[in-house]
């Protein structure tokens, strides 16, 4: 168990991270962290020594890789903040970014990215910040470097006339910091031959290429686009002759389909090739490959099994629209500024389609499409869209009549170019299901850490589109010894608790678990999988700038934790406008005495629970107060409580079983009246009872919220009662006023447990007694005169008595 923190030995950035983490979740010493992977990328087909820097890594056990192609030959924790590994990168390992987590015996780390490249790896060597003395490198290499504050790095390559030189940078994409690189290729006379700040294809990372105009030296410059930078601004700069198209056209087809494509946007000009669309995951990644090399990162295409139609120019007007069937995928290019493309498809009356223009996502085309749909007959505009899906457009189309319809696509700024490729997919409206895991700690993607012989519960979220109904969730590929208990997700709910239990003899292990969601009813055919976003770079106000999307959930079995928690399932329901004490019982390992904070995994709708309850040190029980509001949904819920305790310098967690919590309607409908009373007197408050559910025995009623000095005795009523009368006594010292915070609490006991209901309303008005009737004004007292005897105090009159007296006097 790592117990000592070594934050002081790590990078300043990591210090911040530790502080941040400790603030967020009161520091989990058992939760390993990776802050950096060095080098940040590797050449495939090689064996490399890799350092994982971070914290709490001293019981590191395994690298959890999200994709194949990398074999861990050796993994050893050198220090709590350093793990050394020897990795073998397969020849066919996918190029580009890969995700990894590090599993230790007691937990699983955050997710980090590293890159796999095809070229030889070179380390940046400072000083190289002067144009006149750049770092020499060979063409076709990948530089691992850092842009420190206002740093500019120069590299020089030699190229022959006619050779292409391409520079692609992986900077922000490495996921360390908001590093926005700028890359340029200059000649020896300092003229910029090509430059790139942001490339739509690579987001903030740059890409530029030239064809060497003559034999000679070419200087590659890299810096932060506004001369920023810091120690975390790492980059991988691929410089070589490799092909690096900016677009591929047509940008999609069916998986495994043979397709004639044009690679667009290379310095050497467009290139046509017949390719077979990939069938492997991640889906739709195409790598341009020639005898000069292979593209360092992929071009993305859409894989969908519908007819592919390629635009036939001219199609600049509706009359010239390229026709296709429906469903269909139209492929086009807004090839010059001002170009407008039109496509035509038939639809039956009331036929519905989704019309989605795919450009920026996933194709990463510079096009910002604007979509309009027109009916051919009469030319009426049916609808359109600009930016529903990021810059891309989406329109849900319903045909008003059987007719042909025309889709119009243009660029938002009426720009264009050969790389402005896009696909318009016209597809029937189909059910879609996506599963996510809500963050338990802000900005940290949720993982399942199951202590052996214990349980952990996490919540799953489902996003249903175009269908409804109950869902079943299953977790496939869990580590040996782990079982899952996942109740059916109700039709009106989008979340459900999942409880994972590891047997006592399970060995610590990790797995990437495929979470599958399906409708309970088999009339809807849809299957949903996990799509888990890990935010790696956040911008101003924690905006998501760059991250990773995983299709599986990281689950690990860890060593035991020193306690179990169990929920005592209530035998009675919690009623609307009622409250309940949920009992949590801890089973402590011998010698473990630390307090355990307990909180509900989730609150069913209308139910509130305290999140600040602890099982005190050396205690084994705690009560979590629950309240239900008047509109709490009446049904049985599977609830669960997770306990968290400090242990061995960190924090460990374990969950209770899923217990049933029944939410029921109120038993008694009480109405509190408004009453008034004078100081020093007593009054009766008659609470009306409208029974809603039958009950056995007596209901004990108590009036709460009375002012200081006012008291009433609890009373008991039976199921037949229609009213309950409280005797309220008000002492003289009570402060006069209106008291409206009255609560009538009723407690009905069933199965030996209380059902508590709290009714609010009514008013108690405490009045000052009216002053006694004024007597004749006393004559001014002579100073010297002795004080006359005091007249006997009159009995204070009630208002009614006063009125009677006044009447009498007037007669």
């Amino acid at each position, binding site marked *: 168990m790592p117990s000592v923190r070594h934050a002081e030995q790590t990078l300043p950035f990591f210090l911040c991270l530790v502080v941040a983490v400790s603030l967020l979740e009161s520091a989990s010493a058992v939760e390993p962290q990776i802050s950096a992977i060095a080098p940040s990328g590797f050449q495939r087909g090689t064996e490399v020594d890799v350092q994982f820097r971070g914290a709490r890594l001293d019981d590191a056990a395994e690298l959890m890789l999200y994709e194949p192609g990398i074999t861990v030959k050796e993994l050893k924790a050198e220090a709590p903040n350093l793990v050394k590994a020897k990795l073998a990168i397969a020849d066919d390992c996918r190029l580009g970014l890969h995700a990894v987590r590090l599993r230790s015996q007691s937990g699983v780390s955050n997710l980090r990215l590293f890159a796999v490249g095809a070229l030889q790896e070179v380390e940046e060597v400072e000083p190289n910040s002067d144009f006149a003395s750049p770092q020499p490198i060979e063409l076709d290499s990948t530089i691992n470097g850092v842009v420190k504050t*206002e740093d500019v790095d120069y590299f020089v390559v030699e190229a022959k006339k006619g050779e292409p030189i391409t520079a692609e940078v992986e900077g922000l994409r490495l996921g360390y910091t908001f590093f*926005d690189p700028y890359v340029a290729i200059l000649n020896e006379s300092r003229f910029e031959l090509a430059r790139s*700040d*942001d490339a*739509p294809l690579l*987001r*903030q990372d740059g890409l530029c290429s030239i064809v060497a105009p003559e034999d000679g030296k070419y200087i590659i410059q890299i810096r932060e*686009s*506004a*001369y*920023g930078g810091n120690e975390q601004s790492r980059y991988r700069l691929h410089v070589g002759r490799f092909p690096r198209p900016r677009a591929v056209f047509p940008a999609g087809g069916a998986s495994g389909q043979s397709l004639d494509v044009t690679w667009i946007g290379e310095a050497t000009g467009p290139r046509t090739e017949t390719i077979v669309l990939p069938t492997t995951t991640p889906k739709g990644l195409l790598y341009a490959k020639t005898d000069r090399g292979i593209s360092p990162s992929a071009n993305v295409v859409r894989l969908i099994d519908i007819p592919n139609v390629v635009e036939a120019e001219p199609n600049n007007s509706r009359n010239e629209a390229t026709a296709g069937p429906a469903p269909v995928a139209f492929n086009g290019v807004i090839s010059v500024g001002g170009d407008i493309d039109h496509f035509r498809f038939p639809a039956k009356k009331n036929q519905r389609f989704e019309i989605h223009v795919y450009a*920026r996502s996933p194709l990463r085309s510079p096009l*910002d499409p604007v979509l309009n749909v027109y009916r051919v007959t009469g030319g009426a505009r049916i609808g359109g869209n600009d*930016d529903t899906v*990021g*810059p891309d457009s989406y329109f849900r189309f319903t045909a008003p009549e059987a007719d042909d319809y025309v889709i119009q696509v243009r660029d*938002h*700024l009426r*720009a264009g170019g050969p790389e402005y490729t896009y696909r318009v997919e016209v597809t029937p409206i189909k059910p879609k299901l996506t599963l996510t895991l809500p963050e338990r700690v802000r900005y940290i993607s949720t993982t399942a850490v199951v202590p052996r012989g214990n349980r952990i519960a996490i919540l799953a979220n489902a996003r249903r589109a175009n269908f409804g109904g109950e869902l079943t969730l299953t977790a496939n590929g869990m580590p040996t010894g782990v079982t899952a208990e996942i109740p059916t997700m109700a039709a009106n709910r989008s979340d459900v608790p999942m409880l994972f239990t590891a047997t006592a003899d399970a060995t610590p292990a990790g797995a990437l678990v495929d979470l599958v969601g399906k409708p309970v009813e088999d009339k809807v055919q849809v299957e949903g999988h996990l799509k888990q976003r890990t935010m790696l770079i956040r*911008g*101003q106000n924690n*905006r998501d*700038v760059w991250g990773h999307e995983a299709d599986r959930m990281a689950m690990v079995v860890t060593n035991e934790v020193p306690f179990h928690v169990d929920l005592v399932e209530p035998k009675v329901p919690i009623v609307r406008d009622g409250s309940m004490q949920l009992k949590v019982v801890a089973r402590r390992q011998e010698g473990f005495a630390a307090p355990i904070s307990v909180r509900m995994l989730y609150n069913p709708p209308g139910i509130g629970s305290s999140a600040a309850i602890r099982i005190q040190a050396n205690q084994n029980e705690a009560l979590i107060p629950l309240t239900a509001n008047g509109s709490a949904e009446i049904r049985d819920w599977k609830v669960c409580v997770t306990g968290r305790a400090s242990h061995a310098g960190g924090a460990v967690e374990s969950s209770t079983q899923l217990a049933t919590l029944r939410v029921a309607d109120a038993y008694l409908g009480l109405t509190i009246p408004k009453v008034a009373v004078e100081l020093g007197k007593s009054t009766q408050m008659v609470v009306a009872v409208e029974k809603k559910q039958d009950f056995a025995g007596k209901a004990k009623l108590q009036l709460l919220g009375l002012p200081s000095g006012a008291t009433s005795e609890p009373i008991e009523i039976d199921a037949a009662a229609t009213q309950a009368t409280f005797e309220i006594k008000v002492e003289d010292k009570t402060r006069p006023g209106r008291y409206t915070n009255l609560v009538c609490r009723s407690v009905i006991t069933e199965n030996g447990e209380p059902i508590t209901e709290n009714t609010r309303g009514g008013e108690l008005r405490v009045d000052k007694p009216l002053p006694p009737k004024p007597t004749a004004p006393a004559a001014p007292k002579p100073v010297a005169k002795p004080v006359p005897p005091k007249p006997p105090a009159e009995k204070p009159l009630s208002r009614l008595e006063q009125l009677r007296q006044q009447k009498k006097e007037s007669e």
Partner: protein
Amino acid sequence: MRVSIVREIGERNGASHRSSGSTFSLRRPAASAVPLTQHPTLISRTMLSMLTTKEMTVRIASRIALPSLMLLVAMVGQVAADAKVTSIAVYPTDIALSTAVDRQRYTVQATRDDGVTLDVTTQATIRAADPKIATVESHTVYPAADGKTELLIDFQGHTTRASIEVAEVSITPAVSFKLDVMPVFMRVGCNTGSCHGAARGKDGFRLSLFGYDPDGDYHRLTREIGPRRINLAFPHESQLLEKAVAAVPHTGGKLFEPNSEYYNTIYQWLEAGAPQDEGEVPAVTHVDIYPPAAVIEGAGSKQAFVVRAHYEGGVTRDVTHLAAFSTTNDASAAIDEHGVVTAASRGEAFVMARFDTHTVGSQVLVLPKDLQYTPPKIEGNYIDQLVGAKLQKLRIVPSELCTDEEFLRRATIDIAGSLPTADEYHAFLAETSSDKREKLVDRLLARKEFSEIWAMKWSELLMVKSNNQVSYKAAFLYSSWLTDKIANNVPLDQMIRDLLAASGGTFNSPATNYYQIERDTLKTAENTAQVFMGIRTQCAQCHNHPFDRWTMDDYYGFAAFFSQIGRKQGEDYREQIIYNRGGGEMQHPVDKRTMAPKYLGGDMADTKGRDRRAALAEWLTASDNPYFAPSVANRVWAHFFGLGIVDPVDDIRVSNPASNPELFATLGKKLVEYNYDFKRLVRDICTSQAYQRSCVSNESNKHDNRNFARASVRRIPAEMLLDCVSQATETKDKFRGLPLGARAVQIADGQTSNYFLTTFGRSPRETVCACEAKTDPTLSQALNLINGNTVQNKMRQGGVIGQTLAAGKTPQQIIETLYVRCLTRKPSEEETKRLMQIVASAPTAQEGLDDVFWAVLNSREFLFNH
């Protein structure tokens, strides 16, 4: 009196008071609003009718002490001068009278052979050729019968004439609210901001400020419930009149006399039932002021001005009594409410008359009497010709040319923002060619620093600065874009077209930041007018501009060019995409009219199917645009002279005229001729003699600072000063995003600053005003230099003294080096002697020389460009 005059005129013309019927025609004022006794020229006329010039001279001489006749002295002076009258002119030359109540004042101006003009209206013999058509009385022509005739003027043998055309004498039009009543409110000041024109009115009564909303004013006068503003049964008991004549207490005091013309206008309108004007009333198309210029000599001499308004449909009207007069220089040429200028001290003034929304002006030069002046020969380029012509007009002799040392330092700081190096100093002094100054200017213009200074200046005007909406990267790219354009000599018109019509992402197309830094449509329009045309339209957002021609219609018509700007967030959250929405209109706030885009001071724009901004950019940068080129040229000029020809450079308006209109126009024309390559304009300016003049003044130009007769002493602007200090001390500065040793003028983001720059008035880039960058010397600047750490630290860091001592130089040599390095001159013998004493008395030579260096850096000679 006023009523009787009206009656008299009515009878004379044989016309009865009746409305002109359904067709709307202008109503002429019935008689002069000027009480005869108040008009000086009238006094003199009465007197002169009895006296001959000779007699008068004698009589005046004997009664010189009589105060009542003091006024005549000037008049006598005018006619008795030795110089000969060479020509006379009458204004206006085309008198057109229509309707019975019309009239036209005239003024007669004589010009002497020395250029001095005289107001001889009272002395000339004037008559109508056909008195049956028109009559002449009190310098005013009145209609008698329909027809044409001429006004004949004779003065000292010179004759001239003006045409007179009389029509519709049978018609007496009714009083119009908008044409007759509203001008009275304006003239007597009812609707000014300090009176009822205030946003909430005054004392419960509100008028629209300067009358921008006549319909609203009509409503408030006649329909608003409250005090009895008008009383149609007893018009004279209307509060409107009682207040104005102070018959009842009025916070604003007495504004006019009962029975004055103003009173009668309002009275007659009330008597007629306070009618609202039916249909459209003719608008004023333009206003003339006569005479167009005057050169008057000697304190006390006078010149009367006449103002005439032209309406739609070609009708004219004498509005001298309704115009508000002002002057730019009270000390030289004060003007009274009747439009009479009285000369005082030597100087020049621009007298203005405002009527309706129009302000017109006339230049008045005041010369001392009997000035001895020999015009110097005008040499140099076109700038010198124009400056020289103006100086001759003013009888000013320019200062001598400055020395080579002065010129080297002045030009190097102005053009390149740095001090000349010792090598440059020695080389320049050693050079003997006659065009060495031109060569120096060319060398300096070729330097990168020149474009950096101008990129900085444009960055200031365009407020390049990061903030919550504009990321540092966007500001950096915007600044780089500007620097790039200027460094590559992209013509300014091209640059501005790219800027104004920019669409796209703020990263991808950095010029779009113009619309991101200022996102408010109205402010964008204001900024555009101020930056690129030098016109401040801000006033016209809420009311018609009080000192310029801009109306609310102009303002919102111009703002309509920016009403269709769309903004959306780019994929990178820091980037905004600016685009043309193709929809969206500008509404007039008073009547909610949709305002079609209209060029400021120009025509309606045809923007159908176009980006309105592109149309605007095209119009603005067209070679015949009257605003863009002169305003940019004026900014360039102001950089080198510390003063614009129009100053402030971004407040060009009728009431702030150019000190040298011909030069102002010519510089603009040259800029267009040079295809907006302002580098060539800078070359013209820096090689002109005007730029090369010494700061030392002479007797004739010591009080003049507007006509470039001598060089002005200017504090070096903040960024350039810091660069100069760093250069002199051989130290390096560090600014965000720039490598160590970068110059302050290269700072991209307005947010980046330091204490020195802020203290010395670096532009905070918060508004587009040219006044943001300050060069006023302040106490904190002096204290910063004396006690602050900039100079002291830089001296220590640079170690200049130590190094030169180590190199084996003598203190005397070092003192000379310091002088050349900092002041671009060698110390005088006296200076050397005294400084050597200081060095000798210091504990070490190093300390003594440090003190000398410190003193030089703190000297005014170092801080100022001269």
